[in-house]
């Protein structure tokens, strides 16, 4: 369902994403509405769902609780945005696009996984 949502919304079209993030030239603002639609719907169900004591198929809810703003948060987000603007892919669309068997999606996902492993390795030194 998530993948279909991404596809219908246009997020899996890297050219459309770049058209949205590139404010110069022919600006395409439509992708801004993806988040509007997503949050709009999720917000309604979120409140209803959290009235339950537990999820359907698990013992407890696992929702992040941190509220601190840290340099890692800001730095990480900044970097993510740079990568997103560079390639036009973010993680979800990248994975979904693998189904298209295109080289750019494959290259993106492989390098993304490498980047994730690298970050984990840096954060936790060996020994």
């Amino acid at each position, binding site marked *: 369902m998530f993948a279909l949502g991404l596809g219908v919304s246009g997020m899996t079209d890297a050219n459309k994403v770049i058209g949205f993030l590139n404010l110069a030239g022919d600006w395409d603002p439509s992708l801004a509405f993806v988040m509007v639609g997503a949050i709009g719907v999720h917000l309604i169900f979120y409140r209803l769902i959290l009235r339950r004591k537990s999820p*359907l198929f698990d013992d407890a809810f696992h929702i992040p609780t941190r509220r601190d703003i840290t340099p890692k948060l800001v730095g990480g987000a900044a970097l993510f945005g740079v990568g997103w603007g560079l390639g036009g892919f973010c993680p979800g669309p990248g994975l979904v696009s693998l189904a298209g068997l295109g080289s750019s999606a494959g290259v993106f996902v*492989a390098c993304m996984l490498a980047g994730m492993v690298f970050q984990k390795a840096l954060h936790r030194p060996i020994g």
Partner: protein
Amino acid sequence: MTSILWATAGGGIIGLAASWLLLAKGRTAGISGIIGGLLSKWNDQSSWRWSFLLGLLVGGGILMATLPQAIAGPESRSLTLVAVAGGIVGYGTRLGGGCTSGHGVCGLTRFSPRSLVATLVFMATGFVTATLIGVFA
């Protein structure tokens, strides 16, 4: 106008999917987190993550069969640039603890201050990066 309708509708479907994951397994649908969690531990408890990722691929397959024009790689970017972009996205999402789905959709829904900051920051650097390339490249 139709573009905006598709975007909103697609977003709504994403919202539904995230809601279902929350109801079913009590988890937030942050893709970078789901992948990252698998990179950390491959044990049985992560099986919902595998299912979700498999679902993303299956969904991709369905898109290719029904709406193939929805999936497209960036025509204006070389493979080298895409590779670099991938590495940065991978590193950045793990460092920052989320991406457009984790912080942007799920985090903002919870009114998380961390997600608000993260979303504003990655939107800003996203706009700046793509615009700079658009202007100078």
